[in-house]
């Protein structure tokens, strides 16, 4: 199974709320981006995107995903399951919390840093190092 890398979206990359008849529907109702910007993004979002594209380009053998910080239905159980296998439940709970830091880089559930601090090159280097260690 390939190593999974998760990049957590920046906190500001939020599009809408939740719930039937009020959920994230801006892209579903706006035409041609005329209204105040379904496609507008800030610099942090662009940085995460650049890191994501570089990782996919340079490390195609890895499973790279971008996940919203508020996608708890996926993020929390997946991190908990993966880390608990290796390091036990307490460490898994700690990593579960750390994983919800916006801009995080997770390699097989463990947070190795932040895209916002590491920068694109740093992310690629760190992920390559961790992935090599995991695949041994």
């Amino acid at each position, binding site marked *: 199974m390939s190593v999974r890398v998760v990049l957590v979206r920046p906190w500001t990359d939020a599009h*809408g709320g939740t*719930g039937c008849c009020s959920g994230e*529907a*801006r892209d579903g109702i706006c*035409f041609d981006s005329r*209204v105040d910007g379904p496609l507008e993004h800030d610099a942090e979002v662009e940085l995460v995107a650049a890191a994501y594209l570089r990782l996919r380009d340079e490390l195609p053998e890895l499973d790279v995903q971008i996940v919203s910080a508020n996608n708890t239905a*996926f993020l929390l159980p997946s991190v908990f399951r993966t880390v608990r296998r290796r390091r036990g439940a307490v460490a898994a709970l700690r990593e579960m*919390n750390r994983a919800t830091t916006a801009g995080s880089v997770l390699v097989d559930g463990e947070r190795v840093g932040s895209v916002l601090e590491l920068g694109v090159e740093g992310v690629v280097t760190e992920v390559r190092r961790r992935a090599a260690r995991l695949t041994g």
Partner: protein
Amino acid sequence: MPAIVVAAVVGVLFFLGYRYYSAFLAERIYALDPAFVTPAHRFNDGMDFVPTNKHVVFGHHFTSVAGAAPIVGPAIAVFWGWGPALAWIVLGTIFAAGVHDFGSIAVSLRHGAKNIGTIAHDVISRRARTLFLFIIFFLLTLVNAVFAVVIGNLFVANPGAVIPIVVEIPLAIFIGQYIYRTRSAALVPSIIGVIGLYLLIWVGQQYPVDLAPLAEAIGFDNPRNLWVILLFAYTFVASRLPVWMLLQPRDYINSHQLFIALGVIGLGMLVGWNTIVAPVVNDVPEGSPSIFPFLFITIACGAISGFHSLVSSGTTAKQIDKETDARYVGYMGAVGEGSLATGAVLAATAGVVATTADWQALYPDFATASGGAVGNFVNGVGVFANNLGVPLDLAIIFAAVVVISFAATTMDTGVRLQRYIVQEIAEVAGWHKLARNLTLSGIVAVAIPLAMALIPGGGDAGYTFGVLWRLFGTTNQLTAGLALTVIAVWILRMKRNPLPAVIPLVFLLAMTTWALFSQFWDFVQADAWSERWVLAPLDAIIFVLAIWLIVEAVGALRGGSARAYDEMGSPLDDDTTTTSTR
């Protein structure tokens, strides 16, 4: 019958629907191709278009579509008995919502992840996009009006819930700022937020906030109306804030609450082994709205919700990695919403009271039943929480806080979306000042639903539940009808059998137009001016939209669209959507 047994049976039926019917749709109707290059791959920019694991997309999709709306309709519809309500939820989810949600993603994938409105413009007619905008405008108007009154009524009935809900706003802003400024993890602060919110339930119980004296002093005959005005003033401001500042941290808190509430309902039912005390089919008094067509518009969200097509074709389709993932994400999203609706039915029929006579006292006629529906759900969940050891009075406030939190988020986002629609319509109409002015478009987005929510009459609960909720249901079903028309035309162009989409489409349009027609005569003959001069014209406008949709649907299904498709469902005249393999 024990509620948990019914829940288990529904779970099995949903599983069978997913296992067999969605597989049939994927293979024989939508002809999904694992080698098709999805828009997420084709336009991968790491921002909007991102090929994403199906479990990640499902997490996003489910939290975008699951909320308060699937609670209200089912809690009203048990008036006709829990049997018909549950039957429509189960059959609707399996044969209508599953087809619709799954199909909206599939058709969007073959059209470059464009939204349903844009695809309707392309495959049905130019007019279809305008129709889409008008339907969504009325849908959001009614959603915002209804939820304002839901919250207002709950605040009046549960004054202990006011402090927790009001304090949740600055609490969420503080948490959002803390996470953003310190770049810290979101989980622990948001859990502290949930704990803080629940501690405030105790404070709220000690210091209930009753606006009745103030409302009376100002001249309102019902304190709910003062709450409604305050709520719209708040949402006007909140809809101008960046999403990450208030909405996102509050959603974070709400996402924990969603799972807590689902756990409380499931565990509470199991521990308490509550039995359903409502009749399977209720012998409703003469003059009540009939099951056909009104059940099918009273329960929209939870059986089939057109709103899902906006999420499916707006954001979800841009993240689908393999075309075959659309089945899991779309169909399971519908099943998730159907499960919430099932929980609402069980809370309002098994948890709320202990005997059939007590239940019938809560649902003696449609007006009382619909006016008390959300309160019955709240009390039912309170009983389930009480089964787990939470004192009943606190448990009821807990349930009220959960429902109001979701309803308030619905309003926050609903007003924001309404502003976008106002801007879009203004742009189409050439009113550029309105289209570009956020304050002006925000005022329009707030003023119309506010006026709806304040319509006088309709008894203690107002018109919201008896009438506006049903009108909301019709607009939601029309949205679904538009999406199903697009899906059916697309299937037809692929030379496959369109019946899985056409059957729910015909059924929905028949129920919707029948209900609108029937209601119209009731409004026209009513004594109250508000029914004759506000609700009747509103009903007539939505009826015209329904007829317009039927004309467009018939025209498109008979071959009105000139657009050509290959055998896999990709338009041949659009190089951004052509079939290719990875």
